[in-house]
């Protein structure tokens, strides 16, 4: 279809369609659901980090009034699952981390279930434990899984060019070790599920999963069912951010409890449980060596990454897929080597989290850009512009940048923040006890999904009923990012109908067509393209029918204002017929035709080969952030004064929605940079509460100013690319660069808590210590 110059819905500021219901509290989240006869499930977890389980005594638990069933590994077929096939619903012989599930109870009330869990007696025999991935790889280290005597279940190796030669020929080389720790997703809604069997033996799951179809398949294998006998319903999700991309033990446990009790079972995590037993962002140790020539052009990058896999494998172990793209392709670097080892320990394990390894990689790379700039005598902005990617580039790893607005992002963020001017003037305006600084960082991320399965596609079914109401049934999932609204906008735009005529259905696997799930910033792009295809077909059908009925050339017809419009060759557009009447005339005529279309969109990306080469996404998102900070030299407190972001988003689909995505992502990045840390010592979580796990609150959030670079990607719906993960990615790197600019001290570990910063300032002699006693 031809793109109209002025669009009604695309680019408008549209509040999320479910916003009124969320604001009024009418939306029912999973913990609000009550199913008839439902029991409450609770899980008894390990008290030890690594131990042989000698016995589990459930006799007292079974006697608690109201308890229906108590299950342990002995009572179920305990099928292994997950990316490493090393997780099971219950742990029978050995516990390998503090969250490990030993038993579960279903009872009439939560209190009874909790009481029963407390009464379960477990006898352990402690085993030597590992808490440091470096120690795990040492010779003679305790072995966590006999199948992996070296504690190393995965390695990733990628290279292009000749790093050794390039290193020798570089004018400047910098080397550092970066240390990134655990953080939690902190979803407002905690993990939850309801499992219910019907008389026919079919299982209905009310689940918060981000990947309903993969989930159905995985769940079927774990609980011994056929996937088609499982229906997944996704109620409104109170935040996911990647945390619900994998299946976790509590979910099959709910099914086992429901099956054993012959009653529906609901499990809802307490907040403490959420901190202890939901996945975290993957910690990483990154040893990075980078070089450039005398003019500042990057020559090589050599990275060794060590990932702490914890006691079991979830998606955290696969972040190298994303990390290596940033190492290989964020800038033009002719020689790159990337090696990652993944090591088992007895720490909690990590999953997927907005950015998927990219926050970690970008933190290292973007600090090295600044370090090399300093060595070369270039301004960090110039250094980035010199090495920036451009449209048309195919990188060493085979990523193809059809559209690329990185240069514009750099220019825009620098200009709006007055980056160069302020950095030049800064020395003068700093106070004695407070120093100001500016820092910059850029990012690259997939912008249209990532083909890690055979298909990265999404199906849509669109129908227009006899009152002109449009229903889009999409395979995709909305986890609060607002994709439902964006899809409705796309459909409304193509069909020329008002947004309130469009309903999006996306929450039931019995109804919706296949989709991979919500991850890799793919939904607006992939599901958007799919919806657009279905809508375009419907549009063509409508126009064709109208042309036939009114005996007019189809080229003179268009859709707008819920109607078919006629624009004669020489003349102004006139309303020809309302869409609903046209649809009725199709339904209730001798044509007896329903207006239903379906489409399946498969992006033009490829699955990467064994060397990790290939264009994994059809398009890529770029961005640059500049931050200004103030550092208190006597306390180490870092205050962020402002964030100037610029994002290549292809095209703004929802001006209000994208603002929310950018601001939310920046705040998440700020928390990662400054305050958030799941403190884990000897395998135990020390701060499983919001009192001690510091999220930023509204007063600390600085003004965030974002510019959207509209590169209009030729493959995106109306030119759009994904932006869901992008805004969180380069915040921490920009902050670290700004703190360096302010104080002259580099920080290679996060978060930049006042205590860590003060330690660094004192070690560098910037701040004088008080006499130690």
């Amino acid at each position: 279809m031809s793109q109209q110059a002025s669009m009604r819905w695309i680019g408008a500021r549209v509040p999320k369609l479910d916003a009124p219901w969320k604001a009024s509290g009418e939306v029912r989240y999973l913990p609000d659901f009550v199913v008839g006869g439902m029991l409450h499930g609770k899980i008894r977890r390990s008290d030890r980090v690594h131990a042989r389980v000698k016995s589990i005594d459930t006799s007292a638990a079974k006697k608690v009034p109201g308890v229906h069933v108590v299950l342990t590994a002995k009572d179920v077929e305990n099928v292994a699952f997950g990316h490493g096939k090393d997780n099971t619903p219950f742990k029978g012989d050995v516990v390998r981390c503090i969250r490990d599930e030993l038993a579960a109870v279903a009872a009439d009330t939560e209190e009874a279930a909790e009481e029963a869990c407390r009464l379960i007696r477990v006898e352990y025999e402690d085993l030597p434990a590992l808490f440091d991935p470096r120690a795990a790889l040492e010779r003679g280290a305790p072995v966590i899984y006999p199948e992996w005597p070296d504690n190393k279940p995965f390695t990733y190796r990628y290279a292009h060019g000749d790093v050794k030669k390039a290193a020798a020929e570089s004018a400047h080389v910098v080397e550092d070790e970066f240390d990134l720790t655990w953080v939690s997703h902190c979803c407002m809604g905690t993990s939850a599920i309801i499992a219910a069997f019907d008389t026919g033996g079919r299982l209905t799951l009310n689940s918060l999963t981000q990947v309903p179809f993969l989930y159905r398949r995985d769940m079927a294998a774990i609980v011994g069912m056929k996937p088609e006998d499982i229906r997944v319903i996704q109620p409104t999700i109170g935040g996911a951010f990647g945390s619900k991309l994998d299946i976790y033990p509590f979910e099959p446990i709910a099914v086992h409890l429901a099956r054993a009790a012959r009653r529906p079972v609901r499990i809802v995590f307490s907040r403490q449980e959420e901190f202890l037993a939901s996945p975290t962002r993957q910690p990483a140790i990154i040893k990075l060596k980078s070089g450039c020539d005398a003019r500042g052009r990057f020559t090589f990058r050599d990275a060794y990454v060590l990932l702490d896999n914890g006691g079991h494998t979830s998606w955290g172990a696969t972040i190298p897929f994303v990390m290596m793209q940033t190492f290989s392709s964020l800038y033009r670097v002719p020689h790159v080597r990337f090696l990652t080892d993944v090591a088992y320990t007895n720490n909690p394990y990590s999953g997927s989290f907005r950015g998927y390894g990219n926050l970690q990689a970008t933190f290292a790379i973007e600090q090295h850009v600044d370090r090399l700039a300093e060595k070369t005598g270039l301004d960090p902005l110039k250094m980035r512009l010199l090495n920036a990617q451009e449209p048309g580039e195919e990188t060493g790893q085979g990523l193809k940048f059809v559209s690329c607005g990185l240069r514009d992002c750099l220019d825009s963020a620098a200009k709006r923040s007055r980056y160069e001017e302020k950095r030049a003037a800064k020395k003068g305006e700093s106070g004695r006890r407070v120093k100001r600084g500016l820092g910059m960082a850029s990012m690259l991320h997939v912008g249209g999904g990532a083909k890690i399965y055979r298909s990265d596609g999404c199906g849509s079914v669109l129908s227009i009923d006899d009152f002109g109401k449009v229903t889009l049934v999409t395979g995709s999932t909305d986890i609060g990012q607002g994709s439902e609204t964006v899809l409705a906008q796309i459909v409304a735009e193509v069909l020329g109908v008002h947004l309130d005529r469009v309903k999006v259905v996306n929450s039931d696997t019995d109804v919706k067509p296949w989709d991979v799930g919500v991850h890799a910033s793919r939904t607006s792009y992939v599901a958007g393209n799919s919806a657009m295809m279905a809508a375009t077909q419907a549009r063509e059908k409508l126009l064709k029918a109208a042309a036939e009925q009114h005996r007019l050339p189809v080229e003179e017809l268009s859709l707008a204002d819920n109607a078919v419009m006629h624009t004669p060759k020489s003349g102004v557009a006139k309303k020809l017929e309302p869409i609903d009447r046209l649809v009725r005339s199709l339904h209730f005529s001798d044509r007896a035709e329903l207006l239903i279309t379906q489409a399946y969109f498969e992006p033009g990306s490829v699955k990467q080969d064994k060397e990790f080469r290939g264009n994994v996404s059809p398009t890529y998102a770029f961005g640059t952030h500049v931050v200004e900070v103030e550092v208190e030299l006597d306390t180490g407190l870092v205050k962020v004064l402002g964030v100037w972001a610029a994002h290549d988003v292809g095209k703004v689909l929802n001006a209000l929605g994208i603002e929310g995505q950018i601001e939310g992502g920046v705040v998440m990045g700020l928390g990662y940079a400054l305050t958030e840390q799941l403190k884990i010592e000897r395998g135990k979580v020390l701060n499983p509460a919001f009192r001690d796990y510091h999220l930023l609150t509204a007063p600390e959030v600085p003004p965030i100013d974002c510019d959207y670079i509209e590169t209009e990607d030729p493959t995106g719906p109306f030119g759009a690319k994904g932006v869901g993960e992008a805004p969180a990615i380069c915040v921490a790197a920009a902050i670290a660069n700004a703190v360096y600019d302010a104080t002259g001290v580099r920080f290679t570990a996060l978060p930049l808590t006042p205590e860590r910063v003060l330690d660094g300032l004192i070690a560098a002699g910037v701040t004088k210590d008080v006499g130690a006693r």
Partner: protein
Amino acid sequence: MTTSYLRPTTLDEALAALATTPTARVLAGGTDWMIPARAGAVPDALINIFRVEQLRSIRRTGDALELGACVTVAQLLKSKDVLQAAPVLWKAADRFASPLVRSRATLGGNLCNASPAADLSLALLACDATVTLASKGGRRSLTVEELVLGPRKTALGPGELLVGVRVPIRAGQVSRFEKSGPRPALEISAAAVAFTATVEGGRLTGVRIACGAVAPVPMRAKKAEALVEGRALDPALIEAAVEAAAGEVTPIDDVRATARYRRRLVAAYVRRCLEACTDDRRLHAAAS
């Protein structure tokens, strides 16, 4: 399980109830108490004093500010009298928790919970406040130091209730309240300093330097106070006082901060407080 729950509306009723059940737990705003209670530490008997009107008043007499035990942090922040007569207490309230907690958290609860990190207790220590305890048998007055004996330990006897706080008004007083970040509020202090003094002709008198979260109880840095008392400040003297304060606190490591960092914070805060007294502009700010 709690078997008895009383919600008196007058002080006499409250004291009578407490006399009959001396083991009953007093409940004010509940913002400290609810946390262990939710984890299962529920007492047999509870007496909720939050609705006792007599305990909710703020009164300014000639030379003192009198505050009821159930005055909330939100009330403190709304009171002009508190801002003028006990500015350090107002500043502590301004850095206290979130609006939600402020509307429940009480002065008496902060004192009687006896946390080493209690911000209001710290401010009260810095302004020489006294507290009044009452039981059916009578009343007695204690200083904050006499009331708070250790973590979760107070001098309250069986059947005794903290009913009020008296803050003497000192003319020309300057004050500061410094508390650790990273958040400006909604933060349990890793360290805090409450400071009051009178500055005349460049000399400090009546200096109070109270340090929180760096000892089992909110404590005064008396060595540092003695160093600067009656003297005109200069950089060397300030550094000596800073070193003294950092030396006399006895912090520990915990999940929020290391002892080392807490000591460094005390140094930074004491330095800020004293330096403010040497700078007219900042002095003015500290006095308001």
